[in-house]
């Protein structure tokens, strides 16, 4: 497939990004660069200085709502991408409505409890959706531990062991690897959807 063919396939696709921190901001930017037509981004937070060690924001954006700042950055890359923003805390009651039109949803929260809530809500209320989860990327090095695996409609990217702590912060390289790995899985789903569906039915 040429890049023109890829862009043509992606322009009618919609991807939801749940959380616009280290995983969400970097994953959204990667998807925007390859031409995913519509991105639905949701986060309630504002950009603070400590985010800049890994999140796709700039110093002048400190204090700005993350969804507004991320939309601004995506527009600078490709003004043709449609970015729908939800400045809202995602919870059981609003997830289905917000992401109903997405072909794939990217889980990009930082807290384990939030990850659990999203995975359970999607499994219960929209089990037919593909969900790409980021799990375990704190610290540095250990490239060989990072992997991707599939269970049903859920794809898990990360090392599944490196939990965030004061001694093991989430920082740009490893978070960026996992965020881009998530974007890579999204592309695989969007570009080879029919094959995956067949696999699903087996």
């Amino acid at each position: 497939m040429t890049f023109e063919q890829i862009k043509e396939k992606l322009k009618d696709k919609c991807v939801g990004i749940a959380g616009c921190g280290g995983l969400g901001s970097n994953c959204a930017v990667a998807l925007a660069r390859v031409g995913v037509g519509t991105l639905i981004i949701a986060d309630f937070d504002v950009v603070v200085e400590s985010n800049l060690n890994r999140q796709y924001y700039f110093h002048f954006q400190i204090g700005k709502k993350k969804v507004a700042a991320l939309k601004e950055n995506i527009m600078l890359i490709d003004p043709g991408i449609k970015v729908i923003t939800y400045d809202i805390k995602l919870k059981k009651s609003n997830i289905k409505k917000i992401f109903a039109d997405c072909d794939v949803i990217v889980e990009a929260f930082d807290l384990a409890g939030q990850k659990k809530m999203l995975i359970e809500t999607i499994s219960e209320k929209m089990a037919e959706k593909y969900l790409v989860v980021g799990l375990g990327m704190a610290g540095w090095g250990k490239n060989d531990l990072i992997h991707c695996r599939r269970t049903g409609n859920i794809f898990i990217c990360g090392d599944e062991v490196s939990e965030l702590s004061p001694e093991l912060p989430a920082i740009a390289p490893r978070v960026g690897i996992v965020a881009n790995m998530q974007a890579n899985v999204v592309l695989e789903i969007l570009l080879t959807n029919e094959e995956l569906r067949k696999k699903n039915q087996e």
Partner: protein
Amino acid sequence: MKIVLNNNTETVEQEDLTIRELLKWKNFTFRMLVIKINGKVISKNDYDNARIHEGDDVVVLHLISGG
């Protein structure tokens, strides 16, 4: 009986198993879990009631913070 746990076939001596027994047997001591039996999410309150039977597909996902 045989069950599928996280995509791997496992043989269990008992004829059925609660989630609590499964976690103990596998020594899964994680705090934050998503558990599914044949695609159905099992809430923490049901770990003693929900039973796993022959051929069931069980997912135990251990959630950790960072992102």
